[in-house]
């Protein structure tokens, strides 16, 4: 029973909110166009392939993080687990076990993910703590195994499969990313598993009362995230041809940033792979563009920080408009 003027006002506010929520897409488009105009290096085909490879790692990590965040949890072990998976895979490759190195790499990642899940469910520690524990163990293990050295390996087939190969002009790393986005997007949006993940993320207590298997879901999600970190570790070492203990250090923060930039709140129950893709592209393109423009890494970090808070504030403003 709202009056016509109130209705008009409401529509105007909704429109402003729409513009505000699409702000991130606009920002993204402006960034791409500007970089392409300023820098010939940015728009070179080689660089596009390069971006594809770079966002592969961030994108896979971020889709894992998206699941974890929708569940209402957090995973701080992402970078360390990816690193140690890469290290162990490299060691396996140089030991000459061939293709068997691949399941080994995945198993290392999945194992750490399982550890996270078990700590959260059976030791009843918050995910922040559980994954911090995994972070330290994975980091320590990687350093011990490498003794601080770079692990070299010769496995061209492996490198082609995970990073350097190309199909129809796309790098194989990028193909992996597309596969993971597809798999995760399907799981989340189209399956019962996804429906229950949203339900549990919305309220773990309520979901439990409704008879959903909350604990099992936690273990599965963290294990899945871990396995994806195994994949990330392999792409990482395949890209550069060697493995280091700190190969993916800090990846968790970029992944959280990408999820948040996509507009997903940390409370759980909300988010989608599509949103995360936008966040990933924004960070990927920005990192690449700034590097090409010779902005040093430290300044890049500062810009990223400012970007995150700006997007979050705009998002909150838009949400308030929608609510009223």
């Amino acid at each position, binding site marked *: 029973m709202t009056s016509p003027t109130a209705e008009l006002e409401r529509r105007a506010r909704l429109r402003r909110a729409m513009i505000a929520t699409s702000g991130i897409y606009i920002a993204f488009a402006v960034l791409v166009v500007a970089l392409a105009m300023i820098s010939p290096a940015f728009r070179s085909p080689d660089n596009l392939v390069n971006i594809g490879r770079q966002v592969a790692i961030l994108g896979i990590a971020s889709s894992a993080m998206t699941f974890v965040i929708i569940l209402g949890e957090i995973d701080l072990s992402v970078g360390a687990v990816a690193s140690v998976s890469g290290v162990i895979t490299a060691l396996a490759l140089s030991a000459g076990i061939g293709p068997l190195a691949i399941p080994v790499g995945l198993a290392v990642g999945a194992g750490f993910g399982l550890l996270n899940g078990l700590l959260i469910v059976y030791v009843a520690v918050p995910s922040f703590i559980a994954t911090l524990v995994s972070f330290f163990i994975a980091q320590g293990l990687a350093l011990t195994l490498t003794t601080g050295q770079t692990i070299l390996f010769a496995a061209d087939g492996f490198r082609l499969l995970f990073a350097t190969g190309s199909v129809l002009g796309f790098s194989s790393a990028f193909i992996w990313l597309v596969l993971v986005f597809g798999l995760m997007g399907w799981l989340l949006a189209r399956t019962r598993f996804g429906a229950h993940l949203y339900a549990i993320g919305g309220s773990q207590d309520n979901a439990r009362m409704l008879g*959903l298997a909350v604990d099992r879901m936690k273990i599965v999600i963290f294990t899945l995230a871990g396995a994806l970190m195994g994949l990330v570790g392999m792409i990482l070492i395949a890209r550069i041809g060697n493995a280091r203990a700190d190969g993916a250090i800090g990846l968790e923060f970029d992944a959280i940033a990408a999820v948040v930039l996509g507009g997903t709140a940390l409370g759980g129950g909300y988010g989608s792979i599509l949103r995360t893709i936008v966040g990933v592209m924004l960070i990927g393109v920005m990192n690449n563009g700034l590097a090409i423009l010779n902005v040093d890494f430290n300044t890049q970090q500062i810009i990223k920080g400012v970007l995150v808070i700006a997007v979050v504030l705009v998002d909150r403003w838009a949400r308030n408009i929608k609510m009223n």
Partner: protein
Amino acid sequence: MTESLELHAVSKRFPGVLALDGVSLRVLPGEVHAVMGENGAGKSTLMKIAAGIHTPDSGSIVLDGQSLTFRGPHDAALAGISTVFQELTVLENRDVAHNVMVGREPVRMGGLLVDRKSLYRQAQAVLDRLGIDLSAETPVASLSAGERQMIEIARACAVNPKVLILDEPTSSLGREEELVLFALIDRLRGQGTSIIYITHRMSEVFQLADRITVLRDGRRVATGPTGDFSKDSLIKAMVGRDVPERRHGVTVDNLPIALEAADLGRRGHVKNATFTLHAGEVLGVAGLMGAGRTELARLLAGIDRPDHGHMRLFGEEFAPSGVKDAAARGVAYVSEDRKQLGLLLSLTVADNIALPALRRFSGLAGLLSFTKLRAFARKWMEELSVKAKTPDTVVNTLSGGNQQKVVLAKWLSTEPRVLLLDEPTRGVDVGAKAEIHQRIRNLADSGVAVLAISSELPEILAISDRVLVMAQGRIAGIVNAEDATEESLLELAFSEMGADAA
């Protein structure tokens, strides 16, 4: 047929309380079995055992002659026991269809995809069948408390249950929604479903129930056909003593004016409210849902600012800038929704009671003195007979009635001159209700000006000296409680229906 559900000699102990002590309950097919008792009597615990949430320490669950063990709520659902819990368990982040069908989402292609079309179609069919006027696509976040409750009911009835448990389903429902629920209960009963129905409302029990079981302090004290009970005998069984319900009447003319509102209004909610509230009276505020009662109280409490009109407090201009300002001038507001606004559930009873008056407990060097704080809290716990073991009990673990008493204690401890109560006994059992009523009367007798909003007309009539009735944001009338009846109040509440609110 044998009795469809039997709980046999069930006991359950929580840390510090024996919640159930050898309770047995038999529910026959096609009967509505009311379970009654004061808050904390163990009703919800018994239901949670039947629903597979809690495992009993001893005793057994027998369904259709078969003894069952539930490992979780999923097992109970599979066995045909559906439950609407006292706490809302709707998923706020999802839409109606995903709530109604949760755990039963239809799939296609061998489970690879959720069949969204039939998900929405089936959910809509359930809503339509039950007479719930909602679209399956509506996000739950945009629904009212009553509508959310209806979603819970729809979820419980999505597959025809053998046993339907309803734990205080009407406490957040509007009149229309209640009627939908009652019709549904009748239909299910006709189909042979066993229904366990928990409520604090006497009228519902006598209207719906075939048999009644009464629990007190974790024990079963009575079971029998509804006809064997009267309202008084039920109350007596629940509380273990007689509870007088009486009405007070003072003539307000001689009492000093505490709060005076003139032409008070806020667009869309309250229109031209002019009235006086006297020190020493209880002014009941009646009206339908959405009539603007809470909005009026919020204006008086300084939560919202009026668009026009003004107020005077004991003769002085009163235009509070916020709750804090109003509280500082002696106006306290006890909100309708104790979980969201009134209480910090994860804190202790003492913390909650002391919150508005924290300054008073500064000890050495301005640090809080917990000894003083606890002593203060203990005094107010006794004053209102809050049933908690110590002031350090976490509020979360208290029953609804005791939580409500904590909210009251919290505000009474500030010694307000004007007390605004919004649904002071919602979800509270008869025993605690009578106590709270008595407390409200005592406060008024001690000179406090009390304004009490309630949706229950018997409650309004029981506690008020005068009754202010609101309809569509306006004051439809102010009458002496002694001259009022439920009918006359209802007539006023409906009085402006249909008239265009220009």
